[in-house]
């Protein structure tokens, strides 16, 4: 979850109501950040890597001059097959970042024999031997390890140069038609969504925002996408006690046993719940939006996004 969260947070589109659910085998935020702080702060370690959990990231940084020389040698001798980013090449060189041998290697003692002796893998092109002196092999190994050290959490590759990806594959006219049919009962491009494409200029962010209904979910702490929307996103509740008294306010908390709300004068009230008593009516402005999640096709989504970006 950690990586997902950090990316999402960066995009300011993290929509709430996330179940507190331990994603399988993934560090939770707290523990993961703790590890990162230690990894980054420990002297002699690979600085700046927030995921210094494993030896590839923990090992002491190599000599920059040696790494630079190794980079050059890699380019001449290895890159054609193993790729400029070490993640493998078109003609069959395996990914060195996840290679068992390259991960176990310390300073060329395992990589060296492969470089000088070549390698034969069934079903794969043979790796031709490269007659290189021991110093060069050490330099190449140091370079490979320096790249391994930049791998990110959960086996993700080094960040590298982020590809510019165009998510705007939809048909804006079709999106406009969809909007008119399905959205215009509640939303208006001259009202709450006026200029939305100019306010939220990143198409990914805009798409996440509208698909998620533009708020942080239950609890009413809305991330205002447009100025007048915050109030509309508040989850409210009406509690009707057995003697007919109605208490209304912002919903703070609800479970099977308790409902807590804040009334208009700022006072917090709580009521015990026992089945249907007292009567509790929750009004979540996002409820309708959430129900739509099961109905959208990806094509609808892409079309509507292509339309909304035009609303500058």
């Amino acid at each position: 979850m950690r990586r997902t969260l950090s990316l999402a947070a960066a995009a300011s589109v993290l929509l709430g109501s996330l179940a507190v659910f331990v994603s399988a085998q993934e560090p939770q935020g707290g523990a993961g950040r703790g590890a990162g702080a230690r990894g980054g702060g420990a002297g002699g370690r690979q600085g700046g890597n927030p995921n210094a959990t494993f030896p590839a990231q923990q090992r002491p940084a190599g000599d920059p001059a040696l790494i630079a020389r190794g980079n050059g040698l890699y380019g001449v001798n290895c890159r054609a097959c193993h790729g400029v980013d070490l993640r493998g090449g078109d003609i069959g060189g395996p990914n060195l970042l996840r290679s068992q041998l390259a991960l176990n290697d310390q300073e060329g003692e395992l990589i060296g024999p492969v470089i000088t002796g070549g390698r034969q893998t069934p079903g794969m092109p043979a790796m031709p031997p490269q007659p290189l002196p021991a110093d060069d092999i050490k330099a190449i190994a140091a370079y490979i390890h320096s790249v391994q050290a930049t791998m990110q959490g959960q086996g993700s590759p080094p960040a590298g140069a982020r590809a510019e990806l165009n998510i705007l594959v939809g048909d804006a006219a079709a999106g406009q038609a969809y909007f008119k049919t399905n959205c215009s009962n509640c939303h208006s491009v001259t009202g709450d969504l006026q200029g939305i494409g100019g306010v939220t200029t990143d198409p990914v962010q805009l798409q996440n925002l509208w698909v998620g209904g533009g708020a942080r979910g239950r609890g009413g702490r809305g991330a205002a996408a447009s100025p007048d929307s915050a109030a509309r996103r508040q989850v409210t509740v009406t509690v009707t006690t057995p003697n007919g008294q109605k208490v209304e306010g912002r919903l703070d908390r609800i479970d099977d046993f308790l409902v807590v709300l804040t009334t208009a004068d700022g006072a917090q009230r709580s009521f015990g719940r026992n089945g249907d008593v007292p009567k509790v009516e929750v009004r979540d402005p996002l409820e309708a939006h959430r129900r739509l999640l099961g109905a959208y096709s990806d094509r609808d989504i892409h079309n509507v996004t292509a339309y909304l970006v035009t609303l500058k």
Partner: protein
Amino acid sequence: MTITRLFFTASLAVAPVLLLAQQPPSPQAAPYQPGLNPESIRKPLADSWPTYSGDYTSRRYSALTQVNQSTVKNLTLAWIARVAAANPQGGAGRGGGAGGGAAPVIVGGEGSGEFGGGGGVSVKGSILQVNDILYVTAPDNVWALDARDGRLLWQYYWKTKGGTHIGNRGAAMWNGYLFFETPDNYLVSLDARTGKERWHVEIADFDQQYFSTMAPIVVDNHVLVGTGNDLDAPGFLQSYDPETGKRQWIFYTVPMNAGDPGLETWPNLDAARHGGGQVWVPGSYDPETKLYIFGTGNPTPGYTGVGRKGDNLFTGSLVAVNVDTGKLAWYFQTAPHDTHDWDSAQTPILIDGTIDGKPRKLVSTAARNGYFFTVDRVTGAHVVTSRFGTYSNGFKGVRPSGSPDPDPAKDATVPGALVSPVEGGVTNWQPPAYSPDTGLFYVHEQNGFNMLYLTDPDPRGSMGLGGKLRVPVGDLDNFLTAIDYRTGKAAWKHKYPGGGSSAGMLTTAGRVLFTGDGSGNFVAFDATNGKILWHTRIGNISNAPQTYMVDGRQHVLVAVGDTLYAFRMY
């Protein structure tokens, strides 16, 4: 009670004979120590809690009835104990919150402790209860507590080399020995009386970025261990000798050599050998067939399947191996060619049931992708497939084989795909339960949607769980769901008004179902219909509730982060 005691007596009578057969023929072999006779794990779950799931069926169904539908309202707090990591320099930390005093602290480990994750202690696994002693674990830590009052008896601290400190699912016991796994991939054996280390052995390669969280499972003279990995390394289950720590066998969940079964479901051997399928949640054991049945993790790279076209056996599968040989007996794939990190490691439950009027030996599992399966546990033959995740949309349908058919349109795409469930799945490692009284399989159902973007469109595919952006866009109804194993249909559901729960399940012959509601309440439900019988607000449950008997009183034990709560009848 009477039946339970009879079992106990019987097991004591046969114990010495069995031990002679199991122990290595060495004159130095340790004499019998008070502890857990491995034969006793075969008994139905009652007074103690001797293995991860209570017993080998993994039903988490206790025969105890003192706490039942009528009496559960009389549960009262017996004790609270807070567990804390030991200070690496020696002294106990905050350990033994319930009057710990000078309990011994044993320190082991191969590392500096520097890369220990930095988070606080959270108990996310099962707690053993043997001879009125509780054995509690968290990453790098084991605590022995008196089951009567939660008092700390000893604690063990492992100085780690690092690794992913996500959780520890518990310890295992064989006679007087304890076993647990560490995030830096050691199987550590302790003397259960003192916490003193007997030995530790490396069970997976730390350089390859394996990390180990599973609760070992003891079967006869085998200690079964699994590991985790996020960097495209092969998954495996291993068996170790409880006396010596020597490895007995290893079973890879992906093809590792030319000619291995399942290789035809991968484009090439290199892809298979980097194909994942980690074994990180304990399975179940059928003594009649000697089959250990477990679920396997997702294939890797997790989100970019372009380099691993095919069904990717035996990832995302129910797998049965012979416990003596480690050889595959059968498999059933519950998640062919997964591309969403929806693995199938969830604990399967053995059910002696009836299908079409005929008695059947079955195994059921509720998978992270939102599908429920029942198969024949002797042959692996398919019986039932159903979708229990109300909104799960990653599949085109169900194949004639009973496996769900993945929909490539719901892979990560550059413009984004709307997928349900979220990355954590409809369910996850949290243990389900099954009651033979009701015929119902209990599991939490978490429904939500992600926008899933491909951020690394490289034709070679990405690595690990990289190459994607997953953004939660809405949380839908979350339920406690009771599934009929014969049809896969929900007999009833309880909708949580406050969000979803990540607690595991416990059910009992008192027809009570215990779990957490995700809103900070520990709740007892009527196992027959989901009616709420009792609750207490102690915070969100971080493991699965358990129950045991001490001094003639039934206890219910549950963890909330670093704090254990024991309830008993007043």
